[in-house]
């Protein structure tokens, strides 16, 4: 059995035929070549495979591709706009919140989902938002600080454009 679906990834439509057992993570990586989304544990514990589905953080390793038909998906590749990094990406670099980098795409997307609904979160809210994203080398202190820095940068940006 094959199903015709359209994945709307980072603003682009991808018409595809998928088998019911194909996992979204593998379709993104192996068929669309979007390697930013990582395979970590494969059982929904680590958050490395996090993408945004209709703006909310979900686990692409636990999602069958056919269930994402027609839904808006954002991967880490979709954050950069016209050659400039998203404030979150920039803040992760500036605050040294990236060491091996494996957890970073998922971490940034979880943070993005938070800042999109809560532009000025408390540290506790930041920690809650990334509770499902494990980091084994950078350490969470710099990551939380980077998310805070990004929230300030986004506010400043908003002021300038007003």
């Amino acid at each position, binding site marked *: 059995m094959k199903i015709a679906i359209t994945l709307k990834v980072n603003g682009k439509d991808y018409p595809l035929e998928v088998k*019911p057992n194909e996992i979204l993570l593998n379709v993104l990586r192996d068929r669309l070549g979007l390697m930013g989304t990582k395979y970590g544990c494969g059982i929904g514990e680590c958050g490395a495979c996090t993408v945004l589905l209709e703006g909310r953080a979900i686990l692409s390793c636990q999602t069958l591709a056919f*269930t994402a038909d027609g839904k808006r998906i954002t991967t880490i590749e979709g954050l950069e706009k016209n050659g400039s990094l998203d404030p979150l990406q920039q803040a992760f670099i500036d605050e040294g919140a990236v060491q091996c980098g494996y957890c970073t795409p998922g971490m940034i997307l*979880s943070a993005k989902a938070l800042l999109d609904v809560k532009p000025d979160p408390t540290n506790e809210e930041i920690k809650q938002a*990334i509770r499902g994203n494990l980091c084994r080398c950078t350490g969470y202190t710099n990551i939380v600080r980077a998310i805070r820095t990004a929230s300030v940068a986004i506010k400043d940006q908003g002021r300038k454009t007003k």
Partner: protein
Amino acid sequence: MSSTRVISLDFECSTPRSLDEALEALNEEGAQVLAGGTDLINNIKTNAVEPRRLVYILGIADLDYVTVQGNSLSIGAGARLGDIEHHRQVVSRFPALCEAIDVIGGTQIRNMATLAGNICNASPGADTPPILLVLDAEVEICGANDASPAQRNRLPLGGFFSGPKKTVLKQGQMVASMTLPLPPEHSGAAFRRLARVSLDIAKINCAAYIEREGDRIRLARIALGSVAPTPVRAPTIESALEGQKCSERLLRQASELVAEDIAPIDDVRSTAAYRRQIASLLVREALQEAWKRSRGKK
């Protein structure tokens, strides 16, 4: 072969747009409901289940609701844990339910997983059954009735679990919704759990609900998870409390009766001995908090 990256099992899928369509698809031998998938996909990856067809129910708009109607809260089978936890009326009327949901997984899991799925997965250690049990939840089951496929039957949640990972659902049936009566004034509920780290599955969890009449406990319900083959109520404690004047001493003594109501085992997360010992403390804390909350907002 078992892999956590790819699924080797071949199966068919259905994407119904209505409950009737879903029930029709579920009648097929080996058909199974797929909702958030946070348990099911892992079970398929590890070959614990081998469905022939997955019926994806989160495309059914009619099942995706959280609503207060009359004297009860209704939660559709498609409602995600995150939606329930942040729903204004749930936050104000069912704070202990929100607390039990909030400890489940990370944000991503709660954005995907449904409350109905947490119940249907029927893990003895799941975090929502104890609080749903003490809040007197009913499960609405439909399907597997040829004469009228959409006929819905309501069942108290206590009768829904039949063993570890087992429910009374038959082939062709599914949960359509859950209903909770709105708690009356002078009532309070609380949830407690113990786990190694926050993302872990509970070693043990429990919930308490109290209706008070002045300084007396008019009605008490207590339920625990991870201490028996299914989530269980604690009737011995309940009857020791009902009608009594509430005091620290009463709550302590009643909590110590918990051993009568539970049958814990040793497993990967804890031991029977530890669970038996810690259960009374957990129950006591939940009762203290429920009693405090039954006084209403200060």
